[in-house]
């Protein structure tokens, strides 16, 4: 914590960055994302086990886009998001300094992309045992029950799009659901509209999701939609040996192929 503050303060004091993205105390006993531009503000900066928001999200927001250079307090999820965003031409290495923090909360200092890649590979994967258990539970259900499970699970969805808004990988200026003529995904939050929306989102994240679980955390009605992506990430790693968030130069699984991709269902 003190080390983080020290690095942050120095970066600002020595004019190495214009902006630091981190956390501060929030309302009640929450923490919240915060932005620091002056060394003296760094006293407000905190980092603790509650700082789990994937603040890589802000790299694509105005505040960070305007800054010429910035630093970000980055746990492994944020680091992986940064690498994935970089691979998708969304951020440039020269603009960003990564203050790496392990899942245990240990500061590993400033990381360039090369070091970030190493760091990302050594850190454990994000998936939680309870999520894994839920995936297995669902997979064990008979077909119709699986379908009904999801229809029910999505039924509280109000299409507030917090999942999309808080996902660093959902940076499209115009989301597919906002594309009309044709209207691919029904906008209305009825059961069908919800099912198609979440399926489409999972497909769009396929091979790109870094499994931070932010979508689930942000969802005001607690839909376990992160497991859709978890499940696909697992599949894609197994099937194509492809894993998002590990390399700054990377082509996601659905934008490449090998002539020997193995399936067993094409007649």
């Amino acid at each position, binding site marked *: 914590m003190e080390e983080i503050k020290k690095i942050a303060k120095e970066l600002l004091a020595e004019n190495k960055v214009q902006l630091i993205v981190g956390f501060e105390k929030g309302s009640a006993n929450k923490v919240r994302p915060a932005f620091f531009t002056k060394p003296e503000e760094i006293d407000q900066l905190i980092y603790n086990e509650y700082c789990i928001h994937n603040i890589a999200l802000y790299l694509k927001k105005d505040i960070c886009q305007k800054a010429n250079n910035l630093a970000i307090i980055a746990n492994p999820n944020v680091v992986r998001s940064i690498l994935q965003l970089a691979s*998708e*031409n*969304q951020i440039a290495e020269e603009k960003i300094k990564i203050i790496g923090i392990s899942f245990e909360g240990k500061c590993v200092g400033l990381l360039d992309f090369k070091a970030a890649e190493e760091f990302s590979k050594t850190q454990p994967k994000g998936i939680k045992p309870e999520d894994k258990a839920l995936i297995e539970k669902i997979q064990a259900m008979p077909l119709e029950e699986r379908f009904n499970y999801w229809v029910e699970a999505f039924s509280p969805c109000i299409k507030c799009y917090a999942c999309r808004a808080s996902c660093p990988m959902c*940076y*499209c*200026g*115009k*989301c*597919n659901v906002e*594309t009309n*003529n*044709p209207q*691919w995904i029904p906008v209305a939050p009825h059961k069908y509209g919800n099912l198609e929306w979440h399926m489409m989102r999972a497909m*769009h994240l396929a091979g790109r999701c870094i499994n931070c679980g932010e979508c689930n955390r942000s969802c005001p009605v607690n839909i376990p939609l992160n497991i859709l992506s978890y499940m696909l990430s697992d599949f894609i790693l197994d099937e194509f040996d492809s894993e998002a968030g590990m390399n700054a130069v990377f*082509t*996601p699984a*659905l*934008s*490449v192929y090998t002539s020997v991709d193995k399936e067993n269902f094409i007649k």
Partner: protein
Amino acid sequence: MARIGVFICHCGENISATVDCPKVSEVAAKFPGVVYSIDYKYMCSDPGQSMVVNAIKEHKLTGVVVSACSPRMHEPTFRRACAEAGLNPYLCEMANIREHCSWVHEKGDKTDQKAIDVVRMMVEKVKRNNALMSIKVPVTKTALVIGGGVAGIQAALDIANAGHKVIMVERDPSIGGHMSQLSETFPTLDCSQCILTPRMVEVAQNPNIKLYTYAEVESVEGFVGNFTVKIRKKAKSVDETVCNGCGLCTTKCPNKKIPNEFELGMGKRPAIYVPFPQAVPNIPVIDKINCTYYKTGKCKICEKVCQAKAIRFDQEDEIIEVAVGAIAICTGFDVKKTDFFPEYGYGKYKDIIDGLQFERMASASGPTSGEMRRPSDGQTPKKIVFVACAGSRDPAKGIEYCSKICCMYTAKHAMLYKHKVHDGTAYVFYMDIRAAGKNYDEFTRRGIEEDGAKYIRGRVSKIYERDGKLIVVGADTLMNAETVEIEADMVVLATAGVANPGAEELAQKLHVSYDQHKFFSEAHPKLKPVETNTAGIYLAGACQAPKDIPESVAAASGVAGKISCLFANNELTREPLIAFVDRTAPPEYSSCTGCFLCQPVCPYNAIEREDVKDRNGNLIKQLAYINPGLCQGCGTCVAVCKSKSIDIDGYTNSQMYYEVDALLNS
């Protein structure tokens, strides 16, 4: 509001015998947006087309659905008719109710319903068609000929003689190809080199032809009329502009024990060499792998003896970029080596050779000066066995096809052998004698009847060596399939003609398709035999399938004709069914996010990065841009784009969506 006309064709009785065309027309008339619907006996006939033309004018149609045969058949016909009536041709769609309906289903309500549904789907699609302008592109009137065998030579000369520029690229140090290796040619038994060499010289001397030997195609970009080709000119270590071809270096080279490729390993050559005496160009190259200097850093004898001071040890590969308008692939074929045949000893018996090796042995300029001497001990074989169909027509070997030339050359070989070894016996094992061709059957007959080649109809199951003889075990199917065992001195396998080893890689560079045997695929087996599926790229010779010399030459002249037709125009029109990226007003500029995940999926490298800049030149956004000249319209990028920022004319998201949506109403 859309004003769609629907035209239902009976196709004589091809459609109407199964589909109730008047009923389909009646139902279609009630589809929203349809203002005119009619059925007629032959829509593609003149009166039929006139109906379309008149209806467009009379009913002010904004779109046309012709419900008839496959669009692969008559789409151009009806698009032309629309254009004639002043309707943009791309506002015409075809509903396939013949190949996909009347010909494959029984008469009945279900089939009628299907026809109706198909028409409805196309009506919904055509409502959303965009008027498109065909794309005009300039034509670079230079042709690239890849491969300098007889096909390449013929194509290059014909194109050059039509007045166009030609660039020829040959992988080996000399042009000439396999034909230059042959001894005599069937069915006339004239000397191969005697007829080929003058043509080779002509290529070298034609001012319209630029020849690159010892060179390979590195990459090809672009499209018909406008290809950019990078050619790798491998370092010959000899300055071609200075060398006078005296050949002194090749005689002085101390390292003369290198297996000679031209002689198929049966002769030797030095490290600096000209492949054969009549080579064009007559410039030696240094084989860097075997050259003593390149291996040890010492020697340089060639440099010392060269009067012209032409040796350049520091020469490097050179990449030359050329612009061409058309490409002729004339890369030829290869033959399977004898090690392909486990039952014939996996190539371990020295006296089993392939047909091409026999050609060299029979050639007066070959390693034995045309004398029959077997490789193992130089003895003259008294008993020789020719095995036709060695690999060919054998599904178990993965080569189902007939290699076509073997029957003829095997007959020729048997004759040549008999002409040289009068007391020898020549056996030929064969499956069938395929001698269709002018004077071909007469030729094989001569081999049997006059030269006494012993033809045995049957296959050779195995060959093994025992006590210095090759035991050829086969069956004579005309003699009760009895086992035949011949103790031979030498065996010649007419091994299968196969694609060049580099064919697949070249096909991928050129984006042309190839069959499972890696032979290049023609666009249509009958009607487009020298075209590929990629516009502007043509095929001649045995790179397409095994061919003999006359066929290769005919195809090459065909290609030259096609290319000359292409070059007769200054501009080309292309189908405008290509992808494009959404653009909109600032500050968005586009819904494209610049993730460029579309870029790797494009097979044509048509997706570029476009910088959106403000007036001061500062970068605002980077967007995908699809080069309309390069895009071939596969649409893979469309499906990959998450924000639906890419769409493709002819198959837009909207068209496909509503085509599917139209299913519901049945």
